[in-house]
């Protein structure tokens, strides 16, 4: 008999602590993401490239790939179009690739 009371009490306590824990979670009101400027190198095609790439992601995502070959940048741009539907028309691919290679390029094979 006593045992049942203790059990019931424990259960009640558990319930209380659970709802307290849940309340604590609810206090988390949501977050506000900061904007950070990752400056682009000045160069031919910068504004056009900016508009196309920044539509989906920060410029940091581009420049922190490290200096890369022209073939690499071309492959990346095409992947962005094919896989992620980046709004880059076929006739604009060269301009973006040239800007990337001229400013974030590395003269290696591959």
């Amino acid at each position, binding site marked *: 008999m006593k045992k049942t009371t203790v059990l019931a009490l424990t259960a009640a306590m558990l319930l209380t602590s659970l709802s307290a824990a849940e309340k604590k979670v609810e206090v988390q009101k949501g*977050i506000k993401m900061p904007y950070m400027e990752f400056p682009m190198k000045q160069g031919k095609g910068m504004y056009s490239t900016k508009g196309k790439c920044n539509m989906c992601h*920060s410029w940091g995502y581009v420049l*922190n790939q490290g200096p890369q070959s022209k073939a690499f940048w071309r492959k990346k741009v095409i992947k962005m179009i094919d896989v992620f539907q980046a709004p880059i028309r076929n006739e604009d691919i060269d301009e973006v690739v040239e800007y990337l290679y001229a400013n974030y390029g590395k003269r290696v*094979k591959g």
Partner: protein
Amino acid sequence: MQRRDFFKKAALIAGSAAVGSTAADADTTTHPVDNRKVANIAFPQKRPLITYSDRPPLLETPREVFATPITPNDLFFVRWHMPMIPTYINPHYFSIKIDGEVKKPVKISFDSLKRDFEPVEITSVLQCGGNSRSAFHPTPGGIQWGPGAMGCAKWKGVRLKDVLAKAGLKKNAGWIKFHGLEKPVYTKTDGFVRALELSKLHDKIIIAYEMNGEALPYLNGFPVRLILPGFYSDSWVKMLSNITVTGTKPKLHFMDHAYRVPDNDCECETPDNLAPKTKPIEEMNVNSLIGYPTGGTKVKQGADLIVRGVAFDGGHGITKVEISTDGGSSWQEATLDDGSQGPYAYRSFRYTLKPAQTGALTLMARATNTKGETQPFAQDVKWNRGGYKYNGIDEVTVEVVS
């Protein structure tokens, strides 16, 4: 002049080092870049971290945090794939939908996860497959991480197995797909979806709702994420909202083209001779990192210097960590912690020495696991096109002063 000033200022605002060219290119490997500073802006629920991108957020933990075996939530690294991440989720209205090749599709609410399932805890390392990618040359595509795209936390949650049992798997079930709330800008695209072969499901894989005794930070996947102890973090899906069971292996961009290494014994290739077949990165190899001292620290000649750091592998367990002060010619065993956090956690080590001479002193750390696997010297790590699974012997150079 003006322009340079502008960039200097802008770089300060961003507070993150733009990745520049480092060593020579000849499918070689060096030490990863290790001198980047934290940004002067903190992301929500975080202290300032090394910041590669704000959208999606890509944040690296600085070296000194790895002097202790648990990584605090607000210093824990962050890596998202999609730019659209919910910034408010009411956990009481959050649920995980389970469908596909199941007997009964179900929705399991966050509250039910906490109430109706047996809670389990596991301390486990979470490491990006591309951690230390900046060590590889020629530079592979992907974020040029230093050594801090990792962390270790105590996760609390429920077994994935138990959750799947609520829906009941059909006989032909073969793969489990995971999808979180992050979204691509163009909705017709795949999004970040990962899949696990059913044969690789085990009891230690959990859906976590707590990290180091607190709710998960948003940037680490609030309110729930998948925990796959021993595996690289590519499948640790954050803000886990959908589980779909399929019969056959689903075609997915992030499974078929990313997070793969050459399917050969050395998991290696050269830029001119890429391996024809690849396999998923999956289990982590043996690795260690010195948390203290950091490069350039000034220490006193003849005074006790306590080297501290962490070692880990894919769950087999670390047996020893050795320290070298002579460029790897001779090695002395460091003291390990008691290992009570289990085989998936960081094993912390410490080693005390008295620097005898003034000038530069280089400290190296090398871990070995129960399988006898150990770390290669940085320059002996083999190249792969994705820059994955770097585990070169770590090195820190301090300045000994009289």
